[in-house]
């Protein structure tokens, strides 16, 4: 646990650096190793969790071709059991999806349309997330929670890692950090007391003129009730299997 005094000094360093930067044309990027360590520690801690449930209030900007940003709101909840079981439920203003993963199969389901699709999946959640995204273009909500600080390439890509200050989220003090990497600025809040759980995440896509944002506030349950069978999709009456098209569709040539 870092002492508050230390964080205060780090914070002052950030402030003084930015003050200095104001006089310069090019500011020197901040790469605070303590902040990077804190990110890695949080990621490592999350990967030690055998079983957890997390709920997130999410907002996401969608950019129209006119440049207008529409903010969509939603809620995600996810339960993970071990390394090979995951179930997630996404309910946004505009659509609902359920995701099931049981260590061998991945299913995506739309309760409203009653369409589901099931594909073979790798035997652990990390590889599953990669494959589902790379091969099928499906982004399982909150995949970041499995990945923070796991990959040295990701750390190396950071061009800024700075401490901003304490922040109170849902009644708890969380430390606020700011990161930059190519095409993305992101901010992360990590609980100061107790387990280093993420409190909030904001991602700004900087490669787009209107800089759309994604934001998630997390609520954790480290002792969730888990039903066996909850991770395997069972089609109900009227549910219909439809194909899942591989990403990079042949229509890309259009």
């Amino acid at each position: 646990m870092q002492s508050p005094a230390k964080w205060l000094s780090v914070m002052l360093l950030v402030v003084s650096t930015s003050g200095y930067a104001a006089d310069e044309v090019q500011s020197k990027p901040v790469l605070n190793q303590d902040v990077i360590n804190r990110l890695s520690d949080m990621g490592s801690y999350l990967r030690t969790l055998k079983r957890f449930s997390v709920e997130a209030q999410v907002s996401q900007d969608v950019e129209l071709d006119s440049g207008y940003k529409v903010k969509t709101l939603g809620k995600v909840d996810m339960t993970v059991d071990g390394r090979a079981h995951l179930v997630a439920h996404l309910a946004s203003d505009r659509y609902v999806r359920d995701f099931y993963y049981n260590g061998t199969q991945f299913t995506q389901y739309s309760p409203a349309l009653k369409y589901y699709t099931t594909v073979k999946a790798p035997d652990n959640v990390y590889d599953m997330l990669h494959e589902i995204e790379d091969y099928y273009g499906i982004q399982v909500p909150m995949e970041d929670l499995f990945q923070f600080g796991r990959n040295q390439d990701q750390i190396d890509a950071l061009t800024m890692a700075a401490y901003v200050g304490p922040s109170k989220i849902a009644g708890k003090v969380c430390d606020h950090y700011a990161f930059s990497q190519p095409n993305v600025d992101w901010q992360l809040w990590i609980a100061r007391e107790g387990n280093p759980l993420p409190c909030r995440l904001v991602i700004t896509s900087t490669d787009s003129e209107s800089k759309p944002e994604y934001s998630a506030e997390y609520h954790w349950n480290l002792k969730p009730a888990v039903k066996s069978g909850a991770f395997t999709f069972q089609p109900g009456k009227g549910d219909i299997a439809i194909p899942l098209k591989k990403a990079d569709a042949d229509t890309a040539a259009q």
Partner: protein
Amino acid sequence: MKTTSIFKPGLGVLLAASVVLMSVTMDAQAQRAARASVNHAGGGGHEARPAAQHNNANVQRNSNNRNNVNVNNSHNNVNVNRDVNVNVDGDHGRYYDDHDHYHPVATAAAVTATVAVTSAVVGSIVNANQMPSSCVQVMRGNTAYMQCGSTWYQPQYQGSNVTYVVVNAP
């Protein structure tokens, strides 16, 4: 040859990008969602997303064609099912997940889409909001189709979005 179509495969392609919270619900509006992840395979951000970027650029170009019903000119030689004359200005909410038929932002685009649909190219991919209004779901074996007049569509997931491929009548 009188072949007009409101179907724009280019827009369908955009849907392959990872859209986490929102499917396309606003008619004929190209969209791009904010990134929802900072970590990705290979690290360093989003090298694995060039397809989405590319598609977006593609759609931006296509956006000039949004009010032009002749966007499928290159496919006229394979047009089938001409002169279906489906009035598109119908119940646009039908195939949306949310069953919410109130789409104020869609109004302008919907007005431009009141032209008669006279062709649907086999193999072209459309979104729910580009579907005709008078469709019924038909099962053939274990396969689901949407039959809209004499045009048949097969639903599929592209990423997390459901799109519809024009197919020959089963």
